[in-house]
């Protein structure tokens, strides 16, 4: 084969390069189109599937979760819009709307007691109590609760999920109008599985100044979030919602 030398050869090489890249993008375009078509087909099938299994999705906890996961993979959110195909034709959304209302009811009913801070486990326990005894009513998971709360957040700042930063401890639901500051969330996170803290512990764990600690505690006392225990060796501050959460975990009455 003759090697391309000189001006002619260089031009030849450039030409080939251009042709290659053209072919390349053509292939990519093809690929993309095919993929898009595949997704389209998949979505169609998913919709057909959902329609066919509507009852299972509403009633069966495991089925529902897998369906949600499958939807998430292809970027479909069955709860995205109340007017969308999903909720209108399938009524999948109804399940979560109903659940959301029950969550609000439980949070309002218990907020006098816990200052608006409740653990996910206790919330689930109380929602189940409110839903009645039938198998399908009881088939609610923490995953469902979190999804319903995500829906509720569309209504404003009323609801927030506080997740433990290091993956240890429990997930908390905060249903207080207005936000907790970073400091308050940091205190909650530092507790892990405990339900109380002392000033000394905060000083050690968070390395905050006394003023900062005082300010955070004052706020939480004023908002009714913490109760004070003066009868121990040190003054301790308790979150009633976390205390009852522990009892729920231990299977004790709340």
């Amino acid at each position, binding site marked *: 084969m003759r090697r391309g030398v000189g001006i002619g050869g260089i031009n030849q090489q450039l030409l080939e390069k251009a042709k290659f890249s053209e072919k390349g993008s053509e292939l990519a375009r093809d690929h993309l189109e095919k993929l898009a078509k595949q997704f389209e087909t998949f979505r169609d099938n998913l919709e057909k599937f959902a329609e066919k299994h509507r009852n299972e999705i509403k009633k069966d906890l495991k089925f529902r979760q897998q369906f949600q996961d499958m939807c998430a993979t292809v970027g479909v959110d069955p709860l995205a819009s109340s007017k969308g195909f999903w909720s209108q034709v399938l009524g999948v959304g109804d399940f979560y709307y109903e659940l959301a209302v029950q969550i609000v009811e439980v949070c309002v009913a218990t907020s006098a007691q816990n200052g608006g801070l409740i653990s996910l486990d206790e919330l689930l326990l109380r929602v189940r109590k409110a839903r009645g005894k039938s198998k399908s009513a009881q088939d609610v998971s923490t995953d469902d609760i979190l999804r319903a709360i995500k829906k509720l957040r569309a209504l404003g700042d009323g609801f927030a999920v506080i997740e433990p930063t290091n993956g240890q401890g429990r997930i908390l639901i905060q249903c207080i109008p207005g936000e907790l500051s970073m400091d308050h969330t940091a205190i909650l996170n530092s507790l892990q599985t405990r339900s109380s803290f002392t000033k000394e512990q905060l000083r050690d764990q968070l390395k905050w100044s006394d003023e900062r600690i005082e300010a955070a505690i004052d706020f939480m006392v*004023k908002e009714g979030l913490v*109760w*004070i*225990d*003066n*009868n121990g060796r040190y003054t301790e501050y*308790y979150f009633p919602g976390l*205390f009852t959460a522990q009892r729920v975990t231990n299977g*004790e009455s709340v």
Partner: protein
Amino acid sequence: MAATKISDISWHHDFPPFFTLQPNLDTRRKQLDAWCSLVLDYCRLKKVCTFDVNDASKFPPFFNAKINRQLDNNFIQVLLEELRSRGNIEWEDKHKRRCLVLWKSPEEWAKTIYQWITAHGMNGTVCTFYELLHGDDTRSAEFHNIDPHLFRRVLMELEKRGQATVFSDNGADGVKFS
């Protein structure tokens, strides 16, 4: 009666700050609400009808050995005053040492007793306090074995309505229902 754990009546009893009077007034209100329900539920369950401040430290709801917490005298005063203002206790003496615990109001008690008497056809019969309170016939009645002080207080209520006449004969107290 089987030993009832007080924390089964209310989880608050295991909650250490429950025994510290809360500085935040909203929280304190909730705390006193919970304390009032706890005391009344306990008394109803154990049929406790009187309370003596001198024995306060021995009154089971007022301490929890498990968490090493107890109410101090100041807190007990605040709680008793709260119960009084709600009509759930009545002082029996000027010095506020002894009181009746009314988990049922005197009016409700009066109704209960009068209904029982009528249902058993005992109107017009003279009965002694003793047979009504401790006799075999009243064993199943709600007022069986209630404190004589409370019983007398309820009969006063019935006398006011003209449904009973209380008298004393040779030191034995009796009552005639009409």
